[in-house]
């Protein structure tokens, strides 16, 4: 309607209402419910024990196995917040993993080069995505589909389409090691999420990203550097993918070009969507995306522990994903709940 009158809410929203209308609420409820269910029905689910300096238990498994998707989803959250999408993250993982493996087996460069060169390569691919989209005006889905094919193709060319086995203990101890008894991938996720969330919260970048996602034309007229921020965000997303690629390679001590990161872009996008960041752009919810990733991982582990075949696991995961998305839908939610956000529709 062109002439909205302000709709003033008579009672001030209580803290619980504000909490409940936040995007992270329903995914968190779903995750907590699933964990509680598991504690009841799955034996030894909540047990964590430390053997030979390493923490063991279902929860640690969930965190460690989920760390790849969580890493991807941190970058993906920002891309989706600026109303984009990045389908190439799985391929970028493979490219970074291959690059690291070839560096290790090829010469014997110092560790920091083995780590930073693949990450720089990944970020470069992301910046290329950003330029295709921001400068040439390609649809994000088309541009990153091109890189999806090209990045894995490059990795296959570099490695002659072979698995590259390597052995560099220092590399393994960084990406598949332990710190304070906790596997390092979990710490990577934690550190990256905290840093990104703080940057979004404390600097103007968070607002810039939200503004560009919600209304790119208005953002441009405010003098925001829309193009630069787009390129940066895509580069950062690919950087996260590169990191995930190194973690994946360290885990199995080889770079497997054919399977590394395959289809993980879909899991990452799903995690972001479950986490409450709108696919049409707007506010990024880093915590929500992590919860989304953990939710799907918990479900997987739980179904595995109850010996449910993988084929059926996928169907259950799909059903849960749809349920969580429906709970957040601005058109459906008001029918089920009298929630404060219903007033805005």
């Amino acid at each position: 309607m062109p002439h909205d009158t302000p709709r003033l809410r008579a009672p001030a929203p209580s803290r619980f209402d504000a909490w409940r209308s936040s995007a992270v609420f329903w995914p968190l409820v779903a995750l907590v419910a699933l964990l509680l269910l598991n504690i009841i029905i799955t034996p030894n689910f909540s047990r964590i024990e430390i053997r030979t300096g390493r923490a063991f238990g279902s929860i640690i498994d969930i965190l460690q196995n989920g760390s790849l998707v969580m890493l991807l989803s941190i970058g993906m959250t920002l891309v989706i917040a600026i109303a984009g999408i990045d389908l190439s993250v799985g391929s970028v993982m493979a490219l970074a993993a291959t690059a690291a493996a070839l560096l290790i087996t090829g010469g014997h460069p110092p560790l920091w080069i083995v780590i930073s060169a693949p990450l720089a390569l990944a970020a470069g691919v992301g910046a290329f995505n950003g330029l295709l989209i921001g400068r040439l005006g390609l649809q994000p889905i088309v541009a990153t589909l091109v890189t999806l094919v090209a990045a894995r193709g490059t990795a296959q060319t570099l490695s002659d389409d072979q698995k590259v086995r390597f052995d560099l203990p220092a590399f393994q101890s960084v990406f598949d090691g332990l710190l304070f008894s906790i596997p390092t991938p979990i710490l990577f996720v934690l550190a990256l999420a905290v840093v990104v969330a703080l940057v979004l919260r404390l600097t103007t970048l968070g607002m810039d990203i939200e503004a560009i996602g919600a209304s790119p034309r208005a953002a441009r007229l405010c003098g925001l550097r829309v193009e630069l921020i787009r390129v940066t965000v895509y580069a950062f997303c690919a950087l996260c993918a590169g990191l995930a690629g190194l973690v994946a390679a360290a885990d199995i001590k080889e770079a497997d070009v054919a399977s590394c990161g395959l289809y993980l872009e879909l899991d990452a996008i799903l995690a972001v969507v479950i986490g409450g960041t709108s696919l049409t752009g707007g506010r990024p919810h880093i915590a929500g995306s992590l919860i989304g990733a953990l939710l799907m991982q918990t479900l997987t582990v739980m179904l595995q522990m109850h010996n449910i075949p993988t084929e059926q696991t996928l169907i259950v995961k799909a059903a849960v994903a749809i349920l969580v998305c429906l709970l957040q839908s601005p058109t459906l939610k008001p029918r089920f709940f009298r929630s404060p956000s219903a007033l805005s529709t």
Partner: protein
Amino acid sequence: MTAAPLLTISSLTKRFPGVLALDSVDLDVRPGEVHALMGQNGAGKSTLIKILTGVHTRDAGTISFLSRPFHAASPSDAQRQGIATVFQETSLVPTLSVAENLFLARPHSQTPRAWYGLDWSAAGRRARELLARFDLRNVDVHETLGRFPVAIQQMVAIARAIDMHARLLVLDEPTSSLDAHETARLFQTIARLKEDGIGIIFVTHFLDQVYQVSDRITVLRNGRLVGTFAASSLTRLDLIGHMLGRSPQELEASVASPTPRTSPTRPRDPDDTGELLSARGLSRRDAIAPFDLTLRRAQTLGLAGLLGSGRTEAARLLFGADRPAGGSVKVSGRPIRTGSPRAAVRAGMGFCPEDRKVEGVIPSMSVAANIALVAQRTGARRVRRLGRFGFLSRRAQARLAEELVRRLGIKTPSVHQPVNLLSGGNQQKVLLARWLAAGSRVLILDEPTRGIDVGAKAEVERLIDELAASGAGVVFISAELDEVARRCSSVLVLRDRRVIAELSGEGVTEHAIMQFIAGDARDSTAGGTTHAS
């Protein structure tokens, strides 16, 4: 032309939340008549057409069509009953062929059928016959529609409507994207339709065209009927007067006693003669011919002209919202990069665009975020603390927003409210607050008072005066000439996408502006200069 009316609308009323869009409007269209519907933005033209074609429902009033009560549930329902609309951008499917478009989504009885669906060879034949009636013999009916110029596409839309037995055609700004030759061709078609007894409602903002084709003219203003006139007995000046709500006599009288101006051209102190903003030869293809503009400190400069005259395009080029074909812009004597809003903002410019909801506010973000968005990176020293090192303090942001909400009287329960829950007037104030917070010294305001209620309008106007009084420069666009004449110390008048006159000082009167817009400024008593055009 005394036949019974084809269409009779009486006492049509439509209310939207907070605004009476149509207030008891009457209109009748006779068979074979071209009836022009005129009015400014917000006059109610499009609401009337949307009710007629079933997009909106009416609140009160009656419509009778072909002597029967008429009600359309949807545009296709209206079409079935004989009222068709052709928009500037046609509602056909550009990726389908001409023939496919002609027979798309029509009742089976109107399409050549075969057992497998549409009989393609018969459809092609019928399409060619139909287009031949509109002198479109050289159009390949199997070619994709989108490959033809807009003029042909419109003609195809008209042909389709006629083939669906339309008796009344609504042409809604059909000529906006046509060149002179194409327009002439459209008018030939219109003449032929008249001979067949088809009634036409013609909406345009090109005065020449109105007089070229219309038999009668109905003027709406602020949702009310001003009157229906025979085109042959209505002068251009009278027509514009009716559209703007001022009779020429009234204006003549007001010239004798000029109203005091709120913002004098006189600079505040003698050595403060500096130009805030100057543009030289700024132009953009198909939007505006090269123009110059100079804005001084504490000056409010108006851009006056009808819709489509190029006033919005000129404003957008000044701010860099669009990329100019040529020309230069200086702010406080320093040249800035053209076509870059970022450069403009950094030089201290601010812009409230015509389309507030798409290019102005960021709807899902809070009032506080909308206000602080620019200030926290480019603002005056006082507020830059917010964004120092790119860091922002939510508390400082809220404080800044609260201060401006109070100062501008923005009605919102809190600064954390999403801005799209505010009324149009309050959204406009949030936009102004954004640039005030950023400390902008040059403000370009494109219809800042449009579509907002009377109270908010007065407050926005007061704010503009305050800004100018504090030494800022304001470029002001408004459809209401009295506002422009009252507020501006000089005015550029635009017509047909070029600046045709510059009025200043005592020369700024509604009467003078209107004469230039109407294109008969020969007996101009105004102290303005006419540009060669």
